[in-house]
């Protein structure tokens, strides 16, 4: 397959693994955070951790958009979805994220009209086809999916569709990274930057990590040799005493991002003063709200939602997992009470959540931990 097979070449992977071993100082334990859930998924799917030396540890970051949605927002979604006039649309993974008393899938089973869509465009089509119903799109995701929501809202306005609205939960990646760097219980040597977020925002926004925190960043692709090469580039920076933002994923990521996408985001969305993240708490200017100019398409204004903050379940340690403080298998309920079939925490829901990645690919790593 074009653009794929070249980046799954085992010989290249082995050569990179060798290079990483040569670069890693045996006297230092490296901790590298992969920001994005897509990387976490690739790392476990292809067993990349097994190719790395024991002293190069990959720490999983907060970049799974499903994993970071707090319970209170799911409750708000349920409140909208249960209204008889509403067709509530969302991506598949969101249907299984637990709220306080149910998931959207439960609500659907109880009679709510909840439908899975693959894009906001699908939701807009439903609105066009059902003019007597209110169609609401549950918008989640980072800067990769936010342009899609924004363009759909612009399209809805242009077509004069008035029964379409958006429950906006879009978030941005830079503020949680800054919050993580301020976290006292986390020591990192560098970051693998999010590849596809960077197609939109470019490489520049990650400059604060080397500038303010002296942590190098390599923006990385998602295929196995992409990730291996990025680790290699990061270790090279550390070995040479450099600290900067580098772009491994040049075949996709332009340094300046996509200015059209940034313009569209600025037209439709504004930063919220605060937004709550699962496990990370409230982070300033980390969430996107719909601008007043598009308030007619804002589901939070069209329908009154409870807006209550709900604490995470006590047994769930998604917060520590999202911050990379613990590995998924160190959580008390991992693989017992919390599985992909019956998730307690969000990290077990999405295929890109760290817990689901560990569970699905059987990478419990307990033996390795016990031996070491």
């Amino acid at each position, binding site marked *: 397959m074009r653009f794929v097979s070249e980046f799954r070449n085992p010989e290249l992977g082995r050569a990179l693994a060798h290079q990483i071993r040569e670069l890693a100082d045996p006297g230092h334990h490296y901790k590298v955070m992969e920001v994005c859930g897509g990387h976490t998924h690739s790392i476990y799917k292809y067993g990349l951790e097994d190719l790395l030396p024991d002293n190069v540890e990959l720490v999983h970051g907060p970049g799974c958009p499903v994993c970071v949605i707090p319970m209170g927002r799911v409750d708000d979604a349920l409140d909208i979805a249960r209204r008889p006039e509403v067709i509530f649309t969302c991506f598949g993974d969101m249907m299984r994220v637990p709220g306080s008393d149910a998931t959207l899938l439960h609500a659907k089973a109880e009679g709510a009209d909840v439908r899975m869509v*693959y*894009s906001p465009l699908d939701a807009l089509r439903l609105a066009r086809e059902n003019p007597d119903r209110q169609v609401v799109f549950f918008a989640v995701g980072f800067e990769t999916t936010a342009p*899609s929501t924004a363009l759909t809202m612009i399209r809805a306005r242009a077509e004069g569709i008035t029964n379409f609205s958006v429950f906006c939960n879009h978030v941005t990646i830079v503020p949680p990274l800054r919050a993580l760097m301020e976290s006292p219980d986390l020591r990192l040597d560098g970051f693998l930057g999010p590849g596809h977020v960077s197609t939109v925002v470019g490489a520049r926004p990650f400059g604060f990590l080397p500038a303010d925190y002296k942590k190098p960043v390599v923006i990385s692709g*998602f295929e196995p040799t992409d990730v291996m090469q990025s680790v290699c580039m990061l270790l090279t920076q550390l070995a040479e005493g450099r600290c900067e933002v580098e772009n491994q994923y040049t075949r996709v*990521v332009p340094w300046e991002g996509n200015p059209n996408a940034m313009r569209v985001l600025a037209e439709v969305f504004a930063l919220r003063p605060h937004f709550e993240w699962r496990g990370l708490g409230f982070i300033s200017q980390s969430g996107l709200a719909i601008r007043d100019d598009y308030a007619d398409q804002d589901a939070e204004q069209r329908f009154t939602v409870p807006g209550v903050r709900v604490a995470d379940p006590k047994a769930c340690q998604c917060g520590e997992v999202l911050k990379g403080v613990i590995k998924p298998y160190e959580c008390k309920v991992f693989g017992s009470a919390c599985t992909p079939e019956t998730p307690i925490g969000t990290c077990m829901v*999405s295929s890109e959540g760290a817990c689901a990645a560990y569970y699905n690919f059987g990478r419990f790593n307990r033996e390795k931990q016990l031996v070491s």
Partner: protein
Amino acid sequence: MNEPFHCITCSDEGCEMTVLEWDRGTGLAVCDAGGGVREEVETALVGDVSPGDVLLVHAATALTRLQGGDR
């Protein structure tokens, strides 16, 4: 990528799709998503496209045109 296991919509994992047809008027392209699946894709962020162009698509919106496509 393009594998059924992946959630291609909510995450920072895009899908590479090949343009089959493009409607300049609506700005929507019909794309081959692999495995015989066709999807309608918003092209407002990448400008004019032609059949054969390969796009990186998130949530049915093309974010960038991939280098090396048969154009």
